[in-house]
């Protein structure tokens, strides 16, 4: 079964450093997403991306965050200057269509620890 692949599985970074989280969505999917889950808490929407542009972003997704699909296969989330409160699990997801909410697949996540 096709998978959404995220790398790395765990990243430790120093406060103030830039970090890039990488995702390879399912190849025929057209819609891409990032979510965040602070440990033990609810999963929060960050951003949705379609046709090479952001279609929706949350209040969390401020100027410190950016997304990119640099080469037609990868989908990245960049945090420019990490803060301690950015420590969380970050999930990438992709979907082929939005019709009926079908085919929405999550990756296994990247645990980001900011020290």
């Amino acid at each position, binding site marked *: 079964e096709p998978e959404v692949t995220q790398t790395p599985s765990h990243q430790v970074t120093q406060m103030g450093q830039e970090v890039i989280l990488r995702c390879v969505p399912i190849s025929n999917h057209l*819609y891409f*997403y990032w*979510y965040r889950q602070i440990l033990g*808490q*609810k*999963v*929060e*929407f960050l951003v*949705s991306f*379609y046709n090479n542009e952001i*279609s*929706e972003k949350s209040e969390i997704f401020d100027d410190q965050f950016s997304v990119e699909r640099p080469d037609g296969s990868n989908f990245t989330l960049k945090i420019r200057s990490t803060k301690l409160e950015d420590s969380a*699990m970050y*999930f990438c*997801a992709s*979907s082929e269509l*939005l019709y*009926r*909410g*079908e085919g*929405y697949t*999550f*990756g*296994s*996540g990247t*645990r980001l620890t900011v020290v």
Partner: protein
Amino acid sequence: AQTVTQSQPEMSVQEAETVTLSCTYDTSESNYYLFWYKQPPSRQMILVIRQEAYKQQNATENRFSVNFQKAAKSFSLKISDSQLGDTAMYFCAFMKGGSGNTGKLIFGQGTTLQVKP
């Protein structure tokens, strides 16, 4: 704005018994989809079941079924014949349908379910 509420932070059930997890939501949309996701200790988000709001029939996937009460804005998950592998955190989620849908999922706070042997 849409909200999703799961009022049971933790639940437990004996193996082979039935358990129901509650979820309520608030929306002014008429076209939307509802989901239950399972998050085991591995942290992966796994789709359990999906319901389209315009369908009156409750969705069923093997041991998992929902009780969708549209007027009450309630979407509970019933797990029959609970198995040890069902131990996980369960999230209820909402997605707006129709035009303007960006695929954004709104999640509830989650319910931690423990299945006891």
